[in-house]
């Protein structure tokens, strides 16, 4: 690989700083007592404690999945602290009362939440180490009957809804990390769009992991009732640490008849340094249930961070004529490892799914697409189209595609296309010969490569994503 190409992919993480905010952190280790402590701290009802304990009991019988194409040292689950909350100086009544240090952190991240939220018309439910600090625009959304709050609040204010849907898409014992999350989740977002309501603005959450060694277990639940629609944005950054941080989130989406949920993610967590030291372990379970007829769930993700990504946003297409979509850009650099993709489970008649996956590997990273398309015997007339493209930058990275296709209905139609391309010296020389430097050339090639996915992002996010990819690959060109 030429020197310029090497420099190009070696730009340090811009968001690596630690905020000095006092944290209320539980002792390390996981036991029934820890779970009871979390539940008590959060003043939870008995049914939720039971759900947590049931999940914990299942988790104890399970083993970590070994099938992903990633390697990392064994995680010591007893060395993690399972609860950490910023100590509030007093009860917060408005944004003005938020810890100034916290606000400065958001400034550094480029998320001035009050101004930005107002200017952009985006309600930002900010998560800072597991506990929601402030929820904006809540009142405005409440006017049309939309509930957008932290899941802890929802547990207290809307217990029937939470109890009805929590764990209905991702059961407590679904997989190792989902079981762990169900046992110890501390906070997350809850969103409920009632029958017939089109959410008037994009709902957005910025996540940030702050306390070292505080594993973060977020829980998100989004419900769109009959004929409702919502676009939800999730954006993440994390500060720089030398010890790995475990992140095991669960996101559940439920779409009833004719409902539409669009879930977009731009993820930029700390990925570790050039040598693979530090970085987030991101083991996430995201699943949407198209429960009703003609419902639609669309996942769009731009994954650029984390040392290890293990993530398969999926759709269960139960309602007849329901639609599942997955648009993904996964970029890995340095020593990053990603094993990511989707699952489209076709159960209802005439269900349709689209998968567009773009993997970009640079440095010595390894980027795998893993996807399942399953057509059940009941899914007459089901259709799937999958496109998996990989791009390699340099000589030392890897890309893999693992498509699993299971068709059990003869009337189904499944298409799969795949390609691999490479940004090499000759392409960059062609740009250079026309006066265009390597950074701009790579940015142009990458944006061209990712076009089909970026088009799916909300306008503002698309701009952010374009910049982010540039940032992840830029550097001083020598």
């Amino acid at each position, binding site marked *: 690989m*030429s020197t*310029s190409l090497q420099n190009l992919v070696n730009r340090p993480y811009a968001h690596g700083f630690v905020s000095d905010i006092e944290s209320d952190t539980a002792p390390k280790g996981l036991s029934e007592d820890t779970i009871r402590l979390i539940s008590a701290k959060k003043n939870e009802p008995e049914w939720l404690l039971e759900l947590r304990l049931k999940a914990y009991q299942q988790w104890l019988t399970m083993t970590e999945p070994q099938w992903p194409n990633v390697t990392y040292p064994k995680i010591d689950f007893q060395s993690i602290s399972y609860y950490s909350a910023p100590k509030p100086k007093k009860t917060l009544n408005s944004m003005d009362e938020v810890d100034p240090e916290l606000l400065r952190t958001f400034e550094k991240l480029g998320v001035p939440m009050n101004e930005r939220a107002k200017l952009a018309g985006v309600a930002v439910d900010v998560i800072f180490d597991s506990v929601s600090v402030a929820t904006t625009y809540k009142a405005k959304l409440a006017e049309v009957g939309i509930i957008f709050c932290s899941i802890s609040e929802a547990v207290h204010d809307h217990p029937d809804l939470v109890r009805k849907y929590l764990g209905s898409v991702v059961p407590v014992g679904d997989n190792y990390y989902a079981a762990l999350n169900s046992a110890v989740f501390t906070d997350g977002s809850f969103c409920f769009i009632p029958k017939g309501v089109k959410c008037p603005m994009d709902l957005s959450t910025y996540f940030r992991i702050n306390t070292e060694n505080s594993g973060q277990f977020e829980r998100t639940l989004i419900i769109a009732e009959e004929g409702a629609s919502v676009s939800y944005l999730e954006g993440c950054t994390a500060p720089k640490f030398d010890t790995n941080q475990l992140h095991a989130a669960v996101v559940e989406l439920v779409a009833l008849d004719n409902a539409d949920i669009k879930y977009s993610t731009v993820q930029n967590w700390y990925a570790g340094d050039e040598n693979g030291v530090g970085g987030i372990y991101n083991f996430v379970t995201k699943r949407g249930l198209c429960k009703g007829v003609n419902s639609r769930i669309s996942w769009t993700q731009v994954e650029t961070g984390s040392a290890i990504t293990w993530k398969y946003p999926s759709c269960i297409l139960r309602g007849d004529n329901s639609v599942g979509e997955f648009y993904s850009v996964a970029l890995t650099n340095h020593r990053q490892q990603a094993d990511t993709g989707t699952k489209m489970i076709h159960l209802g008649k005439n269900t349709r799914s689209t998968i567009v996956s773009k993997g970009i590997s640079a440095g010595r990273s390894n980027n795998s697409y893993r996807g399942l398309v399953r057509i059940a015997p009941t899914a007459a007339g089901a259709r799937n189209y999958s496109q998996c493209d990989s791009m390699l930058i340099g000589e030392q990275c890897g890309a893999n595609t693992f498509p699993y296709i299971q068709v059990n209905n003869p009337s189904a139609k499944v298409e799969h296309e795949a390609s691999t*391309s490479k940004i090499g*010296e*000759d*392409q960059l*020389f*062609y*740009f*250079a*010969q*026309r*006066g*265009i*430097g390597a950074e*701009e050339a790579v940015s*142009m*090639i990458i*944006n*061209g*490569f990712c*076009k089909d996915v970026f088009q799916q992002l909300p306008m503002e996010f698309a701009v952010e994503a374009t910049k982010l990819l540039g940032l992840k690959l830029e550097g001083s060109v020598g």
Partner: protein
Amino acid sequence: MIYQDSKTLLAVRDLRATVNGIEILKGMNLTVRSGEVHAIMGPNGSGKSTFAKVLAGHPAYEVSAGEVQFDGSDLLGLAAEARARAGVFLGFQYPIEIPGVANSQFLRLAYNTVQVERGKDELDPLEFDDFVREKMKLLEMNPEFLARSVNEGFSGGEKKRNEILQMALLEPKLAILDETDSGLDIDALRIVAGGVNQLSGKDNAIVLVTHYQRLLNYIVPDYVHVMDAGRILKTGGKELALELEARGYDWVAAEAKEQAGARA
């Protein structure tokens, strides 16, 4: 055309270059003045394309000795993109395909980069669209090529026209056209050559790298150089190309050897 008051645009002195440790250029000498058209001919493997790439700054080639002055300044110290901005253009023998990047976007970025370098205004997408469509007429190119990915799925002839279109947009001082005639049918050759001729003027120069005399029927050179084993063995006028067409290259090498023997 040879002008009396022309200035030296390119001066190559004893240039040696290697790729993967193998020496390909073994003492190249060439002087090109503004307004002139030079043709470099020679057998396969003589180093013609390497010479073109070394001048343009391809990173795979290492210059081991010699110097190159371009427009009065050292060229070899500049990165490839700086050479391009200074006015060195290479028409590629095999233009690179860039999937996903629209040709219009690529052409505009290249054009604006050079405009900025020259202290001129950039064009926005709409202004550029009008501008580039005019230039495309010169090469009888269908405007649909603007919307397609750069060179992707283009035929050989379409790729070469796209190269000359870039030359037309960038208005280089020195255009090195590496086997621009290869892969062209007779109509395409006429169109491409016509485009080059229109772009040729008093203040720029063209170096044609070619195997065949037929291109030189359309673009008439002032000088013809015969290259073999990494250096220029013989230089003559346009009639030399006809002689090469009739007699091949072997006699040039034999003659050079004889002269060298006579000197010794």
